[in-house]
């Protein structure tokens, strides 16, 4: 019997879920809430640029972005299936969600290599 391809998608979903859980709240808190509100002294442009443009950071950001995009694709696909009862649009939804995730991952790859 043919086994489903779902394990690969689930592995990406899980990887992205874990990355998002571990890293995103702290980034969001410092960069978008505490920084703008002045609760913390926002890092200077030079510090941030040096940090963000470091090759290791780019590599990390690419991994984080790609996995998080596929995390969304997988979860959102099932949200549409179950939440809106769209089982008959099965194929279309899968193509759209994973397609968008693939395009976004490629765009992130371009940005983080030649785009910076």
């Amino acid at each position: 019997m043919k086994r489903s391809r779902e394990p690969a998608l689930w592995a990406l979903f899980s990887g992205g879920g874990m990355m998002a859980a571990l890293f995103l709240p702290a980034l969001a808190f410092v960069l978008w809430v505490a920084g703008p509100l002045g609760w913390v002294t926002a890092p200077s442009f030079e510090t941030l640029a040096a940090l963000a443009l470091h090759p290791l950071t780019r590599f990390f950001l690419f991994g984080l972005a790609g996995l998080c995009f596929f995390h969304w694709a997988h979860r959102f696909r099932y949200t549409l299936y179950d939440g809106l009862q769209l089982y008959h649009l099965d194929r279309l939804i899968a193509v759209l969600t994973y397609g968008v995730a693939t395009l976004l991952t490629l765009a992130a790859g371009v940005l983080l290599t030649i785009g910076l």
Partner: protein
Amino acid sequence: MGQALNPDHTPYHPKWYRRRIPIFWWLSKRGYVKFITRELTSPFVVYAVLLLLVQVGALARGQPAYQRVEDWLGRGPVVAWHAFVLAALVFHSVTWLNLAPSALVLRLRGARVPDGVIRAAHFGAWAACSAMLGWLLLGRV
């Protein structure tokens, strides 16, 4: 014997009843509401990653470009919106890490490691990652 009051009924041909599932079934029970909220954190994850990439792109284009992003980030409604995004991301983290013991079953010298220990280890890792990011971003406090 009660007589047939339902005109569609014919003896020996059972008619089973199947209910129609409401479109908003996920509002019908507290557990389902929590489930759908958890599932709907995924667009916020994408939003956060995209915003992060926008910010990194602006950093690469130099101080004036970055300043424009900073100014936008400092506007009142934007901060309020990002507080909401942060809440969604925290909800994702908490629900995600809480499920870790279901997937991860470890054995140590024959005995199963208690769920509480596995959960605590995951939340510890979250704290460690957050502290590391804070240290990197906020001038190594």
